[in-house]
């Protein structure tokens, strides 16, 4: 199997600070891949959202590099790695909490982390960023938003219910499944999905599958959301999976 991907984050038109952080890592060993794609959206309503999100993303990168230090990807045991990932996520959450305590201010970030290893994907989800999978022309949301709806001023507003740095004991949701030929995974912050329509992905699918064009395609998506009026920070990352057997062209 071969994986290709890209990720882009942009502050957007209106905000002064980009509180999103995004990361992608891909490693291969003789056709076996170990990949991580994650987005963290700092809580705007709290201070220092960008510190929280960039701190978590940095830790994710360090964790990934640490794993590569001893892992033999070809012989990796996905379930064990998944257990390590969850342990690490708990550690990152504790760090955010400790930082929050030393700073004396509330802070937090969402995290949507997608890991692909051993032909399977594994997700750790905290907050309202999302992981989608595009397969056979259908866009499917793989994560559940940690949001609750409340009435405010006569309107229904969605409030974030969970994030890294909320409590010392981390609550997260998880999911896993198989990766099949032609699957396209998409990880994004809420800046992207507010105005997103499935056909948008369909249009850029071909480019997202091409490692040379994927990054540009991500930027195009971001621009499109801004045209539609999105004012928040926008982040999107994609990973495309292809079986290495010859010339399988995936149309839509």
């Amino acid at each position, binding site marked *: 199997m071969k994986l290709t991907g890209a990720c882009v984050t942009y502050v957007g038109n209106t905000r002064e600070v980009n509180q999103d952080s995004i990361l992608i890592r891909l490693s291969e060993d003789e056709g076996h891949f170990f990949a991580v794609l994650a987005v963290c959206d700092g809580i705007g309503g709290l201070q220092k959202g960008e510190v929280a999100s960039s701190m978590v993303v940095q830790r994710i990168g360090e964790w990934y590099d640490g794993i590569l230090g*001893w892992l033999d990807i070809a012989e990796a045991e996905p379930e*064990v790695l998944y257990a390590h990932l969850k342990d*690490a996520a708990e550690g990152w959450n504790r760090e955010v909490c400790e930082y929050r305590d030393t700073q004396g201010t509330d802070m937090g970030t969402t995290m949507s982390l997608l890991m692909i290893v051993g032909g399977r994907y594994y997700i750790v989800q905290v907050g309202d960023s999302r992981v989608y999978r595009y397969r056979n022309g259908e866009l499917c949301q793989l994560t559940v938003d940690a949001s609750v709806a409340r009435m405010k001023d006569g309107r229904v507003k969605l409030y974030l219910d969970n994030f890294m740095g909320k409590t010392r004991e981390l609550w997260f949701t998880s999911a896993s499944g198989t990766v099949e030929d032609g699957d396209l995974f998409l990880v994004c912050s809420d800046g992207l999905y507010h105005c997103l329509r499935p056909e948008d992905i369909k249009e850029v699918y071909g480019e997202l599958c091409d490692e040379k064009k994927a990054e540009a395609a991500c930027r195009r998506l971001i621009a499109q959301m801004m045209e539609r009026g999105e004012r928040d920070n926008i982040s999107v990352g994609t990973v495309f999976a292809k079986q290495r057997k010859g010339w399988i062209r995936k149309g839509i």
Partner: protein
Amino acid sequence: MKNENFVLQSSLEGNYLNIKLQEPVRLDEIAVRVVKQDCPEFLIPFHIVNINDSLSLKYKLINAVALEYSDMTLRKDGFVRLFRNLLEPFVKGNDWFLDYHNFCIDPRYVFLDRQKDGVHYIYIPESSYRNSDEEILNFFHDTFIHMTITDDANFQVRLFQYFSRRDVTLSDLYRLIQEEAKKLGVGIAPASVQPVPPAAVAGAAGVSGGTLGAQASGVGSGKPIAVSGYAKPVGGVQSKRTESETPVSNPAKPAGGLFGGMDNGKKNDGIRDDGDTDEVMQALFGDKKKAKDKGKTKENAKAKESAQAKESASAADGQAQKKAGGFSLFGRKKEQSAPAPAPAKAPQSVFPGNVSGSTSGSAVDFSAGASSGLFGGTAYSPMSGEGDKTEIISDDFQAAAYLELIESPIPGAPQRIELVFSAAFITVGRISSDEVQPDVAFGRDFTRIGRRHARIERKGGEYFVVDLGSANHTLLNGQILVPNQPYRLLDGGELTFTDSKPVRYRIHL
């Protein structure tokens, strides 16, 4: 077989199979005693657990592969060996007064011990768990058809044809396997040389030198003892004839049923004289010490840990025994710490109503007031009326290998980790919200221990630890281990989980 009554249970000390017994419970008392006092090597011992007058049998599963999950592709010699091992207990069972119909033949619970080249069955001494002969034959048939014999296709075809016949009996099959084994030079214990069954020799004067030594005779009257190997524990243990024979005339004739035609001099039924009953039972069960001395020429004389087997009566007294851990399956001889107690209670009628039923010789009469020695200590007392209590009849056993806590900065670490394997390895980790928990689970307070922190494996009698890539490491004798590498555990060494806030264990092998 009522599968819904089979419950697997895992604890830090091992994996157990609990079989809940349905009311009304009719246990084969003789079999129970045999298994408890001197469990044959092909059976897994059990304990009877009484919870609020509801009975379960509890088996501690050994470190072996279940037939269902074992390798089904074999060479011919391996196949012959396996089938011989599968069949032999059915043949040998008589010698221990066991009814082969009560072997559990669910392939998930038939265990193959490759190291010792043996098969271990679960024996369910309760009348509702009988398998019919047909079911037993189907078990062998099904086992066979799932196998592939790699180096002798002809043999496989021949066996297949053999199984397709309608009149196949286990004895024929056994003979066939034995012949094959002889041809292959696979060492067999011929059926005629059986380990002398426990108490059959005890006190019985003039044991006929006969092939199995199972025909204890000369007790009093010189008539063959008719404690039938095919006792059906229906309505209590009875010595009875089996389905076919007219016992009187031909005591030497083997019983019918699945072993029809098998002439191996097995113990068979004959008549029993009423007057001999008590003496028989006394001889069989009364004097255990003598039984041991008279000995058992067991095939395995393994050194065993000392197990203080409390008499079952003490369980009836309501003492909960604390188990010390693992056990060694082979050659385990219980040291009877106390002689058979005097009849503590008039034997409750577990078997409601009657225990008669066989013809002329009256059945061993277990109703109140009858035989003196047998129910001297009832194995359990379901009607004890002592209120809600969990009674476990247990033996203390020592683990073969274990880790003992030296120190832990965080309270709540397991004091002792038994290295008892029901699978290839033991995972060590922390409790989490995950569905699957590690075998040895540290509490949530141990935040530095990972969900999958390390693994302990056993290969060929040696133990290894593998760090699974935990963030805070595993240490052996103070040295941080490289992830995914097995390191051998040595007795007296120190195994530590995490290098910050280390939880240290002493290795005992």
